[in-house]
């Protein structure tokens, strides 16, 4: 069912899709079957950079939304994004070009994801979190509300150079409310970062860290493991 006020330029819309009022599906977007698109959502948007943007913006190509996905109201998904089946993109979330998201992922409300990011399957990123560019996130990762990550220790002073590095977050890592992840840190398999921590260096697999700066607290006990 396509709402009358939806603007659908794409010719590749799967069967049983529901497209709500005032949404825009650009021609480079490919929707699988039974995809839901909420009110005012935009899919396949091309970025329109100005000289204020320090990184080169390439034409990123097709955006693919997998079968049975939901793209909720006011979400904006740029060109060159790939989203696996059964994934939910929450209200107001923004996903920049060159992002790949696996299957059955939850991107909750108002999550912003910058360019060149890979997110594995079954991962959950909760409300108001920010995933910085050049980040790699594994499968079954949990990122709580208000988690903020950065990728540039030079505050943009050296442009978008090689030293700009996001995080590597391995499978089953759990990140608590309001954590700050500084550029280039690696979070090991199954680790837990306690709420409010500021992570300045790598976290070993299956360990708990807490504080500012985040320091080792304990191994992860069995009852807190999700694997």
């Amino acid at each position, binding site marked *: 069912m396509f709402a009358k006020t939806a603007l659908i330029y794409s010719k590749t819309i799967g069967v049983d899709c529901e497209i709500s009022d005032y949404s825009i599906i650009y021609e480079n977007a490919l929707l699988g079957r039974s995809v839901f698109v909420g009110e005012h959502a935009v899919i396949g948007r091309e970025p329109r950079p100005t000289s204020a943007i320090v990184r080169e913006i390439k034409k990123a190509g097709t955006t693919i939304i997998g079968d049975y996905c939901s793209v909720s109201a006011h979400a904006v998904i740029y060109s060159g994004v790939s989203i696996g089946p059964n994934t939910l993109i929450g209200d107001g979330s923004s996903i920049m070009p060159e992002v790949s998201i696996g299957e059955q992922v939850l991107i909750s409300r108002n999550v912003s994801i910058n360019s060149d990011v890979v997110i594995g399957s079954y991962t959950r990123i909760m409300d108001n979190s920010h995933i910085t560019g050049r980040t790699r996130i594994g499968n079954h990762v949990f990122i709580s509300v208000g988690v903020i990550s950065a990728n540039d220790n030079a505050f943009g002073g050296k442009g978008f150079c090689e030293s700009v590095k996001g995080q590597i977050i391995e499978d089953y890592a759990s990140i608590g409310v309001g954590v700050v992840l500084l550029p280039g840190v690696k979070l090991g398999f199954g680790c*837990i970062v*306690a709420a409010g921590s500021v992570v300045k260096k790598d976290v070993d697999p299956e360990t*708990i860290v*807490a504080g500012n700066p985040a320091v080792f*607290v*304990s*191994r*992860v*006990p*069995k*009852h*807190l493991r999700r694997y």
Partner: protein
Amino acid sequence: MVFEKLLRIINSIMKKKGEQELSAHYLTENSSLRNDIGFDSLDLAELTVRIEDEFGIDIFEHGNVDTISEILKRLGENE
């Protein structure tokens, strides 16, 4: 003996937090880890790991525990 070992583990966590260590008189079998001793989820995680290292038993394996007597029961002390 188990009680003394448990008290030592709890006090090592209290010390790490910069809080006053507990005496055997203060810590009763009815003391609650959360409400009386003030342990948060991180403290409980550390306690669990240290008890497992000492006794080889995961006290949370069969559900939550909160009081000292519940821990002792899981460790086979109060059966």
